[in-house]
């Protein structure tokens, strides 16, 4: 019996996903559990497993096309089984096979982003074959200028668009792809100088230079990530009344503690825990004492979440992403260090799973590397608490009639005042301060 392949539910807030790449072609045999396509949702890409063993008989939604979750995007048949008639309709869209040795831009550009301003009254006029081609290749017709009678978009216009800027499965040399990924440069709109428009390393370099150029008086279309950040931040700012608390925490104890255990730790586990790793652990343990900071508001209910998953905000060249360390309350320092390193690496490479982004229950945002004393942050919805970390600075402190130089950092706690009151927040922050200033006791049983 034929099995439908769907875009899976990718988290409670996710409604749509874009197919970035099919790893299998029509006619390929697939094993149940094997990764068959990659879907991009909001900020992350996730791999989708085959729901059955058989033949990938039909790809109904091609690469670059965004569809609601649970949309049927392909059909798997048993060997020898004919594709059921209902999947053979004309609107079936075939995906494009990639030429061997070609890297595909994984952050599939939206053609719309490169759209020239266009005077369109109502629907775009396009011939059905052109429309069909555009849809199967994930090209937005509004981005295309029609050259047919009355400005009608013809097949050749879509083909031209495919060759040019809005080509989703852009031909990119491996070196160019690597450089673009490393520098966080979008390949969108790059006119390749290689054979048949292939984007070469030099093209990416030119783009990097151009982007570095001062850019006053220009309009920048929002990337998918920017749109998500914009939406989530304004949602959070307008629904959760934020209140902030700041305290200075002496950093010498934790810095010394880290320095002391580092050689042995490194020798034994081959890992170098950062101050952030200690911080994640301390926050997780602190949350166990203040579970209200691990809550989310759902209408008139406060849901205290069962897991403590601490997010660490990671700055990217074109945005910000917050993967979560799973079960940070129960995880040892080794596990936290490993998870943190892996998540940050993959965040920079744009290869986080939806689950890693959605599971967070509390966020830490650190600007310790900047010359910022303290700052506020918007809650990462639907979370109720966010901790900010300023730079570690030296201060003079009176001690036993003498003056001593101490290292201090100002920590900020932002909470959702709907469910967390000032006194609770203050207690949380003070308790965390105590934990960090007495690390030996705090990390006794790790």
């Amino acid at each position, binding site marked *: 019996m034929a099995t439908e392949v769907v875009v899976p539910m990718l988290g409670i807030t996710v409604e749509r996903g874009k197919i970035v790449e099919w790893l299998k072609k029509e006619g390929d045999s697939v094993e149940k559990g094997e990764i068959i396509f990659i879907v991009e949702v909001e900020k992350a890409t996730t791999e989708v497993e085959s729901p059955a063993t058989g033949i990938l008989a039909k790809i109904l939604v091609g690469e670059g096309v965004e569809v609601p979750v649970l949309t049927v995007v392909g059909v798997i048949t048993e060997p020898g089984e004919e594709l059921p008639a209902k999947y053979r309709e004309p609107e079936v869209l075939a995906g494009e096979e990639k030429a061997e040795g070609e890297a595909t831009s994984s952050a599939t550009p939206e053609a719309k982003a490169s759209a020239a301003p266009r005077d369109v009254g109502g629907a775009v006029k396009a*011939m059905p074959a052109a429309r069909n081609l555009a849809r199967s290749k994930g090209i937005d017709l509004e981005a295309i200028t029609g050259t047919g*009678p009355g400005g*009608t978009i013809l097949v050749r216009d879509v083909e031209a668009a495919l060759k040019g800027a809005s080509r989703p499965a852009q031909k990119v040399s491996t070196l160019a792809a690597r450089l673009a990924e490393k520098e966080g440069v979008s390949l969108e709109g790059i006119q390749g100088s290689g054979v048949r428009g292939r984007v070469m390393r030099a093209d990416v370099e030119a783009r990097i230079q151009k982007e570095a150029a001062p850019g006053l008086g220009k309009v920048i279309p929002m990337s998918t990530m920017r749109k998500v950040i914009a939406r989530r931040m304004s949602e959070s700012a307008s629904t959760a009344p934020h209140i902030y608390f700041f305290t200075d925490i002496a950093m010498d104890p934790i810095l010394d503690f880290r320095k002391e255990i580092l050689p042995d730790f490194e020798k034994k586990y081959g890992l170098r825990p950062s101050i952030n790793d200690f911080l994640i652990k301390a926050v997780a343990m602190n949350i166990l004492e203040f579970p209200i900071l691990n809550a989310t508001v759902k209408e008139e209910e406060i849901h205290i979440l069962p897991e403590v998953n601490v997010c660490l905000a990671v700055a990217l060249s074109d945005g910000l992403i917050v993967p979560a360390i799973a079960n940070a309350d129960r995880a040892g320092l080794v596990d936290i260090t490993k998870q943190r390193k892996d998540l940050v690496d993959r965040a920079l490479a744009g290869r986080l799973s939806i689950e890693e982004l959605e599971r967070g229950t509390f966020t830490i945002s650190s600007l310790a590397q900047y010359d910022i004393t303290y700052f506020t942050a918007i809650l990462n919805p639907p979370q109720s608490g966010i901790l900010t970390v300023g730079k570690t600075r030296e201060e003079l402190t009176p001690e036993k009639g003498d003056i001593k130089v101490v290292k201090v950092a100002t920590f900020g706690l932002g909470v959702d005042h709907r469910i967390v009151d000032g006194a609770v927040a203050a207690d949380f922050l003070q308790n965390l301060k105590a934990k960090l200033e007495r690390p030996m006791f705090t990390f006794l049983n790790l």
Partner: protein
Amino acid sequence: MREITYAQALNEALRECMKEDERVILLGEDIGKYGGIFQVTAGLLDEFGDKRVIDTPISEAAFVGASVGAALTGMRPVAEIMFIDFTTVCMDMIINQMAKMHYMFGGRGKVPMVLRTNIGAGRGAAAQHSQSFHALYVHIPGLLVAAPSTPYDAKGLLTEAIKNENPVIFVEHKKLYVEKGPVPEESYSIPFGKADIKREGKDLTIVATHALVLRSLRAAEEVAKEGIDVEIIDPRTLTPLDKDTILKSVEKTGRLLVADEGHKTCGVAAEISAIVAEEGIYSLRAPVQRVCSPDTPVPFSPPLEQSYIPDEKNLIPAIRRLMEYT
């Protein structure tokens, strides 16, 4: 291969079938002594006698009704209606009897008869002798409708029509009777529902019927000089219609022109266009074009009639319009 005319090819099919099967009889006005208005039945009275080639009075309803009865009782009558215009006076016999008997008797009776007639303007025969309303019979379930465009198809399709167990409206074209083409001497039949690709091409598909096949072939040669490569599909039978060949061709070329001498409104071209819109829309790179007769009676005035008849003067601009969508 030897070449004979369309009328001679039809004559040959009749002769061969009559020789082979004595149940085959002919009925019609002036088909005996005169040999038929277009000489399709010439010589058959002498060869087969007046029991099998029956000159009827001017009484279309009577001899078409008689043919239905004869077919029901085991004969294989071939009735000739001089012009399709005259089928209006035997419409009950055709639509309510010929088309329905097999169904009304729950399959226990059959009507293996052929009603030969012709369409087409261009002979100065005015509004009552020049019409092309064959689409009317395509509209009626229970009738098969053949539409030969060449002598070869005429002979093969008529042989098949006579041997077929179902009632067939065999629609000839009066401008084609004198057209010559290669026809095998032996008997053969062409299965119904199988279109013929009269010209292969890659830029656009013309689905043409009857005389429009010939006119499209000439238009195709003309536009070939401009580098336009036309494919011409002749359905050969309108019921059943070979949709697959049409859709396949449109899938290849992405452009469709339907050319039929019937009126444009509710005609064969409308039906074929609708099928492609329903089942092949995503192949279309250009809007569908139809070249048909205008929605007016056929004029008697020769210059007006020439202007009325759909041919190269309409086909070539339509082809060029389609090619604006490249």
